[in-house]
């Protein structure tokens, strides 16, 4: 994975010093809260319902065991013994003291980590495929391109005060594991007819109040124009994105209001101009970065045999592992969704244990997934049982990936000052009702996503089943959506009808799964059946 050179290290060290100075000025009263807020947000520091919250960047979701260990140590030393992994592959801490933050950032900088641009109206942490570099079917490893974009977007002077936040995802597989088209810019690395690698650009996707799927804006951007083209996309947005209404300020509204063709025309015009400016790093820089992402030293003779006599292990292998490009290895996902647990939370001890297992059995590498789980990207099949045993002892062996128990949930009203309703208790009730191995096996793949408000941090629009918490005259109320998806077949969920109480929405999901099971043909997933038979039978069962 990427390793900082002296320049990268100096950039994060300088940021720590800058933030320390900002905190000093805030505490001295030289900065008012109104002035300080946009500055602290650009460093991932929020003021939440109960305390300050610090969001630490995990660039494109990749980290090593020293970094992961420190994340656990920070949870113990500065927080309350746990952290929360987010849908943008980051980690956040819920109980941070303002006066501690400069020291936390200084500790992070020592292991090449930071909280730069994890919030604020700027280009956020760049997300990617959690199986990058390990997946059997990828065209290239997308992370070098994400790293090139990370450096370009860090402290980009023209794009630090955009109309609104800006999220970029980079993938390089047909299978989209990063919800690429639900980003402000989605980039898919592709190979053209001449066999050259380039970038396909999508722009104007997003969730939130007005969910939109990003249209394709360019088939192929050559690698030596990647930064220049990105800069053109951003400049058009910075100049013309709406600033009169924060709910209409995302690029998706600009692309929608201009129309995709007019946005493309403006970007191409700006791109043609920017090509006259020497702003593009040389390909040698991309090569330098790529050298950090070469394959680890796989054992070419690793055995493909796996002893599956332990039934619990077998279930976990079937549910939570994926094919690796290297024979004798697998990609293993650790579910942070124990039955009745809090989606995405891990204790300091669990975080450190995962770090140690990655060091011993996954070439020192871990990934954070947008579904709030952790991945060991390169585990030898011969080591898999040992890894599973250790996870099992730590309460980390839940075998439920992509099933009804593997719920994405935002922190909701238990933690978030923007939320209208709690998300976590709903997730807990659902996983308790449907989480047994038998029910899970019966229902199969079902992606369930819960947001506690319209901002959609829990991706409810993209869930096969989505739940949106709203405030109904001071009471928590939950709307149900069906038919969303975030993969290559991205679609947006439709609301079933009137909302429910917390228990009511769990009952409604039960009815929806009954409709699915009664109508399922062959190997259909919930989503496939829904797409085939439509909303009506579900509505009838739920409200009839």
């Amino acid at each position: 994975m990427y390793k900082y050179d002296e320049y990268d290290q100096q950039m994060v060290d300088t940021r720590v010093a800058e933030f320390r100075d900002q905190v000093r000025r805030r505490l001295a009263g030289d900065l008012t809260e109104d002035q300080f807020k946009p500055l602290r947000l650009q460093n991932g520091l929020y003021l939440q319902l109960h305390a300050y919250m610090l969001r630490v960047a995990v660039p494109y979701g990749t980290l090593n065991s020293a970094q992961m260990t420190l994340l656990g140590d920070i949870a113990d030393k500065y927080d309350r013994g746990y952290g929360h992994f987010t849908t943008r592959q980051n980690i956040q801490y819920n109980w941070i003291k303002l006066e501690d933050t400069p020291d936390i950032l200084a500790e992070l900088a020592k292991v090449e980590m930071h909280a730069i641009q994890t919030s604020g109206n700027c280009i956020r942490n760049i997300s990617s495929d959690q199986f990058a570099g390990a997946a059997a079917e990828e065209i290239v490893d997308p992370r070098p391109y994400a790293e090139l974009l990370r450096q370009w977007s860090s402290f980009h002077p023209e794009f630090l005060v955009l109309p609104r936040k800006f999220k970029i995802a980079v993938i390089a597989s047909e299978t989209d594991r990063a919800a690429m088209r639900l980003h402000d810019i989605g980039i898919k690395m592709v190979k053209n007819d001449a066999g050259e690698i380039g970038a396909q650009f999508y722009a104007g996707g997003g969730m939130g109040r007005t969910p939109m799927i990003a249209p394709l804006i360019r088939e192929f951007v050559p690698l030596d124009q990647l930064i220049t083209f990105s800069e053109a996309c951003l400049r058009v947005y910075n100049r013309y994105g709406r600033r009169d209404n924060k709910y209409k300020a995302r690029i998706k509204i600009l692309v929608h209001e201009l129309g995709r063709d007019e946005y493309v025309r403006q970007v191409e015009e700006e791109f043609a101009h920017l090509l006259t400016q020497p702003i593009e790093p040389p390909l040698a820089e991309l090569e330098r970065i790529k050298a950090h992402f070469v394959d680890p030293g796989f054992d070419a003779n690793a055995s493909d045999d796996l002893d599956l006599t332990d039934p619990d292990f077998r279930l976990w292998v079937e549910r939570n592992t994926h094919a690796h490009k290297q024979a004798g290895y697998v990609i293993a996902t650790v579910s942070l969704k124990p039955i009745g647990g809090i989606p995405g939370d891990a204790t300091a001890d669990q975080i450190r244990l995962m770090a140690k297992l990655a060091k011993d059995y996954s070439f020192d590498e871990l990934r954070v997934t947008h579904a709030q789980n952790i991945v060991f990207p390169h585990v030898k099949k011969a080591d898999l049982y040992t890894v599973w045993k250790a996870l099992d002892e730590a309460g980390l062996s839940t075998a439920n990936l992509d099933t009804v128990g593997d719920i994405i949930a935002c922190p909701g009203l238990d933690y978030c000052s923007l939320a209208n309703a709690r998300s976590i208790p709903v997730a807990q009730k659902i996983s308790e009702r449907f989480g047994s191995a038998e029910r899970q096996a019966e229902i199969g793949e079902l992606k369930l996503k819960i947001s506690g408000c319209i901002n959609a941090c829990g991706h409810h629009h993209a869930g096969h089943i989505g739940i949106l918490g709203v405030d109904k005259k001071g009471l928590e109320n939950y709307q149900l959506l069906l038919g969303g998806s975030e993969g290559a077949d991205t679609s947006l969920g439709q609301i079933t009808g009137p909302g429910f109480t917390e228990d009511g929405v769990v009952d409604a999901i039960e009815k929806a799964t009954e409709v699915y099971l009664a109508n399922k043909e062959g190997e259909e997933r919930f989503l496939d059946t829904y797409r085939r038979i439509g909303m009506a039978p579900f509505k009838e069962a739920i409200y009839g």
Partner: protein
Amino acid sequence: MVDVQFRFREDEAVNDPAVTVDAFSQQTNATAVRIEPGDDARDLLPHLDRLALVEVSFPAWTDGRGYSSARILREAGYAGEMRAVGDLVIDMLSHLRRCGFDAFAPEKALNEEDARNAFDRWDNVYQATVVDGRQAIWAKRHPA
């Protein structure tokens, strides 16, 4: 009129009254213009030869359109004073400079020492904006 607190130019300051972008194209004797966030800086491109002062207005520092306006004019070859005016904050000074600003007239004077520290904060930069004349980190990594 707000005072210029920081200026990074050797030449004599121009203090002609700045007119709006609309007025500038009409008044053929005007030499100073004031760009508001909603103005298109490219409207000035036909008139660069008579421009001696560009003021870019920041009614609120969180509106970043002025960064693009400044850089666009510099990219087109404008070499006169580029003055940031309005709600300027210490923490954005170095980024303004990187987009081509070389004079700063904050509506409320900034703490002198904090501002100087902010201007000098970043020894290195990740991007080439070209208009600030600075070499990006990638260029230092791969000397020609």
